[in-house]
C-alpha cells in the first residue's frame, strides 16, 4: 500500500529537494497557495528513530529555503487526493500560519529539578494501611502543588526577563517528576541565536534547577495545534 508521510507546508515553491526519507521520492503536492511536502511510502508504515532525524533534516532544508511549517513526525496521508483536500480545507488557516510562523525559529528551555525524587521515592510502594496511604498521598500532593507553583513562578520570571510576547511562548510546568519547566519561545530567524544566548544566561542564574537551552529549530511546538486529519 502506498501512503504519504508529511514533512512540511510551504508557500507554493518552484523547486526544492526531490528525495524524501530512505531515498524515496519526495512529493510536492500543491493546493491553492500552498505546497505540502511528503515522502511517497510503499509498504509498511513503520518508522524508526533514524527516520525522525531524517524528517527533521528535511524540514531544516525546506525551512532554510523560505517560510515553512513543520508537520509532526509520523503524520500519514492516504494519498495525494486526501492531502490536497486537507490543504484546501484549511487553506486560510495554514496560509496565515505560514506567514506568522514560517520564518521564525523556536528556542527551547528545559529546567530540571536538582532534587528530583528517585523513582523509588515517588510513593508507589505499598502503604501499611489505607489511612497511611491517604496521608502519604496528601504529603505527595502538597509537594507536587508546591513544585507546580515554583515552576509557574520560574516561567513568569523567564518570560519577563526574556521579554517574550505572550503569543510567542508555550510552556508546561512539571511535565514529569524530573522536569520543572518545559518552555518554547519564538524568535525571528535572525534573532534566534541572540535569544538563545540570553536564555542561557537567564537559566544559569536560577537556583535549584539545571537549565538546558536548545535550538534554534523550526517552530515545532507552535504548529502542533494546526494538525488536521488527512485521512491516514
Amino acid at each position: 500500500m502506498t501512503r504519504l508521510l508529511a514533512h512540511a507546508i510551504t508557500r507554493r515553491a518552484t523547486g526544492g529537494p526531490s528525495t524524501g526519507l530512505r531515498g524515496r521520492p519526495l512529493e510536492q503536492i500543491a493546493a491553492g497557495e500552498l505546497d505540502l511536502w511528503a515522502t511517497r511510502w510503499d509498504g509498511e508504515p513503520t518508522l524508526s528513530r533514524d527516520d525522525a532525524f531524517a524528517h527533521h533534516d528535511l524540514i531544516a532544508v525546506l525551512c532554510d529555503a523560505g517560510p515553512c511549517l513543520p508537520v509532526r513526525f509520523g503524520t500519514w496521508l492516504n494519498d495525494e487526493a486526501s492531502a490536497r483536500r486537507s490543504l484546501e480545507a484549511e487553506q486560510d488557516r495554514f496560509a496565515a500560519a505560514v506567514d506568522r510562523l514560517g520564518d521564525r525559529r523556536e528556542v527551547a528551555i528545559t529546567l530540571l529539578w536538582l532534587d528530583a525524587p528517585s523513582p523509588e521515592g515517588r510513593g508507589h510502594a505499598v502503604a501499611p494501611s489505607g489511612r497511611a496511604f491517604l496521608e502519604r498521598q496528601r504529603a505527595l500532593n502538597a509537594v507536587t502543588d508546591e513544585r507546580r507553583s515554583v515552576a509557574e513562578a520560574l516561567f513568569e520570571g523567564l518570560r519577563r526577563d526574556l521579554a517574550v510576547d505572550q503569543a510567542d511562548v508555550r510552556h508546561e510546568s512539571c511535565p514529569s517528576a524530573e522536569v520543572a519547566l518545559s518552555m518554547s519561545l519564538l524568535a525571528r530567524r535572525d534573532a534566534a541565536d541572540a535569544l538563545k544566548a540570553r536564555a542561557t544566561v537567564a537559566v544559569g542564574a536560577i537556583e535549584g534547577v539545571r537549565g538546558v537551552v536548545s535550538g534554534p529549530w523550526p517552530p515545532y511546538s507552535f504548529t502542533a495545534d494546526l494538525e488536521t486529519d488527512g485521512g491516514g
Partner: protein
Amino acid sequence: MEDEIGTLRRELERVRGVLPDRVDVDPEGVEQGLAKLVLTLVEFLRQLLERQAIRRMDGGTLTDDEIERVGLALMRLEAKVRELAEAFGLDPDDLNLGLGPIGKLL
C-alpha cells in the same frame, strides 16, 4: 458553588497531562493506544476520588473505618493501574492526555 467550581478547576489543572497525547490508530499499536487511553481515564478518576477522600478525611466527615476502606481501595486501584500499564508495555508515569491549548489532563 463558586468554591466547588474553583476546586474542580484546580483539580483539572493539577491533573492535566494524564491521557495519552494521542491514540495510535495504527493497527499494530491500537491495542496499546486504547489501553493507554482507558488507563489514563481510570487514573484521572482515581486521582479525583483520592483528592476528595483526603479532603473528607481532613474535614472529619469519614469514620476511621471508612478512611481505612477507601484508602485501601484507592491504593489497590493505583497498584492495578500500574500493573496493567506495564502489562501493555506502558510506563505508568506516561499515562496522560494532551488537551490542546489547555495543557494535559494530569
